[in-house]
């Protein structure tokens, strides 16, 4: 490990799906995860126990000494929400590319055509981005976009409002307009387990207000969206996320990704990043 990536929390399993011990890996090192007496455990290759946290339906661990607690999402705990364990998808890309794509709205009309976006509604209006002091998180707010079918529960096109939050280098949280409950936010997250710098296990998770759809429908909607993203993520060159300017060309619509890259540099998180322009 080159930098401080060992001192962060990472998702390594879905608790509801951890019926027997499972081998996986984290930051290039093999680990084993399992449940004992209802509590999740994680061992490294030398059978040493790693610290664990159970949160958002997932088991989290860290190979190092996390210098901050695993983040929380207080809004997700309000009653009436459906908590959706989507499962995992393996993607041959940098964990940072997976997060950055999740923060991007300009691709909706082209990658999630007629679902999350559609031509000619392609314009991305200026929104607000900041790196919040104190909590040290990236936040994008007042993000507005036209969506033909914003969620499983949406009927017809609506202007959806979004907030994006990056509370950890490989995790992102999206708060979006909730069609059945104006004034509330649906919560959709992307938790990324870095298997290596160029290979990851992605665990989407949702906390939604939706009383109609079945759990299977909610899961398959999110899987459809992520499969479309995967066709992008596995075809970006280079696979690692370039943090230095010059390799890629951002525009105003990419303010969130600019802030994300800047923040990664600031906290010196370089696992999955390319630092020198090739």
């Amino acid at each position, binding site marked *: 490990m080159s930098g401080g990536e060992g001192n962060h929390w990472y998702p390594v399993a879905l608790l509801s799906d951890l019926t027997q011990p499972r081998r996986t890996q984290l930051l290039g090192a093999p680990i084993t995860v399992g449940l004992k007496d209802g509590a999740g455990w994680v061992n490294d290759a030398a059978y040493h126990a790693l610290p664990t946290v159970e949160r958002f339906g997932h088991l989290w661990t860290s190979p190092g000494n996390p210098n901050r607690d695993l983040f929380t999402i207080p809004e997700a705990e309000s009653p009436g929400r459906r908590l959706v364990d989507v499962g995992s998808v393996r993607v041959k890309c940098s964990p940072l590319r997976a997060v950055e794509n999740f923060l991007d709205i*300009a*691709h909706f*009309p*082209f*990658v999630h055509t007629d679902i999350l976006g559609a*031509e000619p509604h*392609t*314009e*991305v209006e200026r929104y607000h981005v900041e790196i919040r002091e104190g909590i040290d998180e990236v936040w994008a707010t007042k993000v507005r976009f036209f969506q033909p079918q914003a969620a499983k529960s949406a009927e017809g096109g609506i202007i959806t409002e979004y907030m994006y939050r990056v509370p950890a280098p490989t995790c992102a949280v999206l708060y979006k307009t909730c069609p059945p409950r104006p004034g509330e936010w649906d919560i959709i997250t992307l938790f990324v387990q870095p298997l290596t710098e160029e290979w990851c296990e992605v665990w989407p998770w949702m906390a939604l207000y939706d009383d109609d759809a079945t759990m299977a429908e909610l899961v398959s909607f999110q899987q459809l969206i992520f499969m479309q993203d995967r*066709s*992008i993520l596995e*075809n*970006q*060159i*280079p696979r690692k996320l*370039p943090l230095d300017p010059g*390799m*890629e*060309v*951002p*525009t*105003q*619509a990419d303010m969130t990704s600019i802030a994300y890259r800047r923040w990664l540099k600031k906290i010196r998180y370089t696992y999955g990043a390319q630092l020198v322009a090739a």
Partner: protein
Amino acid sequence: MILSWPAPYRFEGLGARVLDWIAVALLEDLPAGQVVPRRVHDVDLAVWRSAAGEVQAWGDRCPHRGMRLSHGFVRKDKLACIYHGWQYDLDGACDYIPAHPDLTPPKTICAQRHDCSTQDGLIWVALEATDSTVPETGDRVPVRSLDVAVSAADVAAMLGLDLAPVLPVDGPFDIALAVQPSGPSHCLVHAVAGSGADPKTVSRHLEDLRNEWEAAA
């Protein structure tokens, strides 16, 4: 004899990048309005044709987020990236960014163009600028392209020839191969044959040749 090549040309050892012009497809296999990926040596290309049929060969990477342009789509005389719909004109310049419809993109945003030409029904690409003329295949017509799990240099050697853009093949038919090096142990051959030959028979013969090369490699 081991030759050493100037730095940018070093790849695959002997025989690397000795060809100025490299055939990448039969023109008839790339209809107008379509884009395909092609690898030439270690360079990934997006080869595409405008709606009017003009042929282009670009580096397979959108400068915005590195997405492969070969996954994109053609609209009229532009190639658009599938990720965010950025459109590039025939000069390779980005002239439309859908997220900012009223913006005139800076001239600095452009795809990497390579010289590209069509001749005798083949699409030819030059990775580096060259003064040499596009190779001719004689009075032959395109038959088909074949994937071969043998390097271009080895295919030439098995034909008893030095690597050249067009390799004539001895045998029962008037055949020549335009070879496309595409890896240390891989190439494409784009076959042309005298107009009298039956394409099906020639195609079988080419498959037999490929089997021989791959067995011998």
